[in-house]
């Protein structure tokens, strides 16, 4: 059970990091909310 949680946590972190990449790209493109 803990194995599943930690593997999902790792995948989840890299998912957040990918969203962060897209967010930074959005900032660089100069788009406004």
């Amino acid at each position, binding site marked *: 059970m803990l194995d599943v949680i*930690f593997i999902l*946590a790792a995948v989840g972190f890299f998912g957040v990091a990918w969203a962060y990449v897209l967010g930074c790209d959005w900032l*660089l493109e100069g788009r406004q909310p």
Partner: protein
Amino acid sequence: MTAAAWGQLALFSALVLLTTKPLGVYMARVFEGEHRPFPRILGPFERFLFRLSGVDPSVEQTWVRYAASVLAFSLFSLLVTYVILRLQGFLVFNPQKLAAVDPALAFNTSASFTTNTNWQAYGGESTMSYLSQMAGLAWHNFISAAAGIGIAIALARGLTRRRAPDAPRTLGNFWADLIRATVYVLLPLSLLFALLLVSQGVIQNLSAYREVTTLEGGKQVIALGPVASQEAIKELGTNGGGFFNANSAHPFENPSPFTNLVELWLIFAIPAGLTYTYGRMARDTRQGWAILAAMAVLFLGGTLVAHWAESRPNQALASLALDHGAGNMEGKEVRFGTAASALFATVTTDASCGAVNSMHDSFNPLGGLVPLVNIQLGEVIFGGVGAGLYGMLIFVILSVFIAGLMVGRTPEYLGKKVESREMKLAMLYVLIFPLIILGLTAWASVTQWGTSSLNNAGPHGLSEMIYAFTSGTGNNGSAFAGLNANTTWWNTLLAVAMLGGRFLMIIPALGIAGSMVGKKVVPAGPGTFPTNGPLFTFLLVSVVLIVGALTFFPALSLGPIVEHFAGLAGKVY
């Protein structure tokens, strides 16, 4: 400082300086040259790996694709290590029949080695099989270091490339950079220095541990293993994870003052060389020397403070009628003494390495402050392989921006204008670091899971917690000790700190590279602020110190600084 201490510092500094240019030229040829070094020996290996992995090195990537490749590769390698650690009890090369690593510890260790941190909440000889050490951990020592070098080169390309406005805004190919850093830089140097270390007494075998009878007639188990092959890359890749729990204080890892000097040089060699590589890429080597000078100033300052602090008696013993001539010897190897210990502690925390030859927890408060501050300045004083250069380049951009504000001109660097969009990402880079460290330390200091792991009360206990999260987030990996970090809470949160401190800082750095690479280059004019001279070095050092002080001084004042003054008043922790 004694004459021997000065001599050691001078010899070490001279070695680093002497090898900066040749290593820098070599790495410039590897990453940017048309003809790579040793084409008959290393060329076929490189091409084999390209074919095996299906990589076409001529296909360049935008910053988003470069970042995606870094993330995908890191996630894959983290999961591979996690599986190896969890299954080591069923796998080969396990003569001690060590059981599977606990899930939280396996997660922490996988994150630790993926991020080039090498924080170790375990004793290597009592936890890890030889397969885990070699395939799970030493493998990461190469690839995490290679990834760091690749990212630094990508940022350097972004800042230094001159392209037509309609040209693709690409930064190179992550997979090609990863393979070239491994094949041309890390593997050959590691092999060479592993053999040198073997010749000096560092062990290398796959034997079971040996039980011996001591001179007093007792029994002692001597741990063995493939140490030399991991020792060289441990320092060269600024990884720092020791084969043994005692790390470079163990005689099988670091047998003599000569190997100590070699290991110190290995830690600084690539970060120093990369500054020259950067200068070559910028077509002005003085750009690289200016950055190296800033790193050297900060290094020398920290070293002198650490030497001074550790040459003084241990605060707990100062009032006793003892000979204090050797300085504070608590937690130090007699073979190395205070001078080599203080120098090693400074170098390993400047460079994001984390290997230790003494216990930082036993330093006098101001001696322990130096490693802590070194990491908190952002691991830019030489820094990790690659990480030091890309971290310092962010501070360069920050310095250029501040200089531009002071004279009322649009800031520019290497002829490219630095605009608000790059500054937003630079601020993300600068702010994410203290946010993780201070946020998690604050949480730990008011919770049962945080404080129950401490072995010391008062400001020293706070220092132990600050150090743990600083070391994790800074991807340093050295431990202050005095803290039982092998609990589910600490393992999990330190893993999050390590992952955040690596990838949430790499991403804005690559974003800045992607933004700068396509910018038009304007020729330098009379109003251009020169970034290749002593004035800029002074500004860069000042910015690094001011940002670090503004961020961390309040926390430090509650930890090592108040502990120092309490010690002067006779109260120790």
